[in-house]
């Protein structure tokens, strides 16, 4: 299977329009004015799907769909959001479990019909769907089983997040299409094929990102004694103006480098403020005087960010058989989106969409979470992948431990 940038762009637009339709249906019924915040296509490891849902409780509806595209899709609300929507439909209904349930079913059904119809219209093909099934589960278990992905363990997921103005409620739409019909559709919508990327190569990239994150996590353990887990890595594709939204609006601390070579781009290592203090203090030999994030904390973060970056970039260079240099790290301490915005703008001078490679590590023992993002130049990433021999990719897959 090959995917090209144009068909990824088209499919992203489709998912976005589907989500817009679903949102409009909801706004009409409830009077709640909402806007689609993020839509992206990601290639994710089966095991990692839904990681961002955490342990929260969700309710929603699940469908199977079949036709031009086949697979499973869910629309889920967190509990607070569902209460708000249910009450907007029928005041007081949220207190009555059976009324709450039927309201969620009703609105879920209408929203998802809009979503699926949007796709079918665009594809000028029929997509049938089953009646909605009400679901009520926690975290990632709310998602349907991922389809069998014949030779590989990575699947495409379409995700949309919708936010209300007061930022207190949101819902997610996940669409997990089966591999073969999607591949066929993408091939149909592909351009002449000049910029097509064999999907296997994107998967290799994901694996290398994962290995890089593991290496970075080892460094964190070695230096700070914090053992991390749940490394998630994925490669996503989104319009350039949606790139800053991948990061939350909270304040982050971390490092940013520009890397050069093929591909060039930017690499960010970000910690939320609490995690930054935790990890910095674990790195420092003695207690720090002063509250919050001091200059000493920041210099420890800078050092750690540098080491995590090096592990990552070295891994890429090995796989790609290209030298990848990077600038000295720049320390950042600012609003998440404002950190990413200038980087997206710099890429945006040459491209309308961007690949976002992201990876996360965390631990339950202490307050610690770190996110790593790579934003490669799109054309150069394609070039690099083009030169990446799949045989070599197989080799490096086996060699991953030695490489890092």
């Amino acid at each position, binding site marked *: 299977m090959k995917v090209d940038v144009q068909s990824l762009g088209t499919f992203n637009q489709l998912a976005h329009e589907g989500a817009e339709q679903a949102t409009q249906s909801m706004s009409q019924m409830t*009077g709640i*004015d909402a*806007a689609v*915040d993020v839509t992206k296509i990601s290639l994710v490891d089966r095991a990692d799907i839904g990681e961002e849902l955490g342990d929260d409780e969700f309710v929603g509806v699940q469908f199977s769909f079949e036709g031009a595209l086949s697979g499973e899709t869910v629309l889920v609300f967190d509990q607070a959001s569902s209460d708000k929507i249910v009450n907007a439909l029928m005041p007081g209904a949220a207190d009555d479990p059976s009324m709450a349930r039927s309201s969620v079913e009703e609105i879920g059904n209408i929203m998802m019909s809009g979503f699926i119809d949007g796709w079918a219209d665009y594809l000028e093909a029929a997509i049938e769907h089953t009646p909605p099934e009400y679901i009520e589960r926690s975290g990632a278990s709310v998602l349907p089983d991922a389809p069998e992905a014949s030779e590989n363990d990575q699947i495409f997921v379409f995700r949309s997040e919708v*936010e209300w*103005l*007061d930022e207190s409620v949101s819902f997610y739409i996940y669409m997990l299409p089966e591999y073969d019909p999607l591949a066929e559709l993408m091939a149909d919508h592909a351009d002449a094929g000049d910029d097509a990327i064999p999907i296997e190569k994107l998967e290799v990239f994901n694996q290398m990102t994962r290995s890089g994150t593991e290496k970075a996590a080892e460094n964190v353990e070695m230096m700070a004694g914090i053992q991390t887990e749940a490394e998630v890595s994925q490669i996503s594709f989104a319009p*350039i*103006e*949606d790139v*800053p*939204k991948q990061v939350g*609006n909270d*304040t982050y601390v971390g490092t*940013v480098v*520009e890397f050069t070579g093929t591909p060039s781009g*930017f690499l960010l290592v970000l910690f939320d403020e609490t995690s930054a203090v935790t990890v910095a203090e674990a790195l420092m030999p003695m207690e720090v005087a002063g509250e919050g994030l001091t200059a000493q904390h920041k210099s420890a973060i800078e050092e750690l960010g540098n080491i995590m970056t090096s592990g990552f970039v070295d891994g890429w260079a090995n796989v790609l058989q290209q030298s990848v240099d990077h*600038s000295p790290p*720049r320390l*950042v*301490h*600012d*609003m*998440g*989106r*404002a*950190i*990413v*915005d*200038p*980087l*997206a*703008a*710099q890429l*945006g*001078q040459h491209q*309308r969409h961007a690949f976002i490679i992201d990876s996360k590590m965390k631990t339950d023992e202490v307050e610690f979470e770190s996110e790593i993002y790579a934003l490669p130049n799109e054309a150069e990433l394609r070039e690099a992948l083009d030169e990446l021999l799949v045989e070599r990719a197989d080799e490096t897959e086996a060699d991953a431990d030695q490489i890092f």
Partner: protein
Amino acid sequence: MKVYDGSSQTEQTQDADPERIKVGIAEYEVTTSGSVLTTSGLGSCIGVALHDPETGVAGLVHVMLPSADEMDDGNPAKFADTGTELLVDEMEAAGASLRRIEAKIAGGSDMLDFSESGSGIGVRNVEQVRETLDSYGIPIVGEDVGGDHGRSLRLESQSGDLVVKSANQDDTRL
């Protein structure tokens, strides 16, 4: 990207807080109903806030890159030149008068600019917005641009005040 008029908030009570409308990256909003327009996470991006004090028509656009000429892209709100032009047009369509419109601008930071030669995107964004506003004769009556930090904005359309927030500094009211 809608124009919000009085009818969009019929369900709101008179004494409620004004409606808040979020403006995303490469998006704009115009209000005629006293709403508060907000946008967040401006790095090198720039927020252009326009206000007609007499009619209370106000608008905010969050642009990302200097000029639409440099790219083949269908979204005018993404660029400093076409985004500003679009906002002026929409303000006029909503009843604002070009003679009265005043501008306040914020953003255009130099943070994380890795370009080695020439001006960074933040600087060019600011220059382009100034040039486009000047071509309409719209005065800039308040600004907080440049520097090396991010900003979030809140345009209070009733007064035309633009509140600039940043992660590590106190709020500024323009």
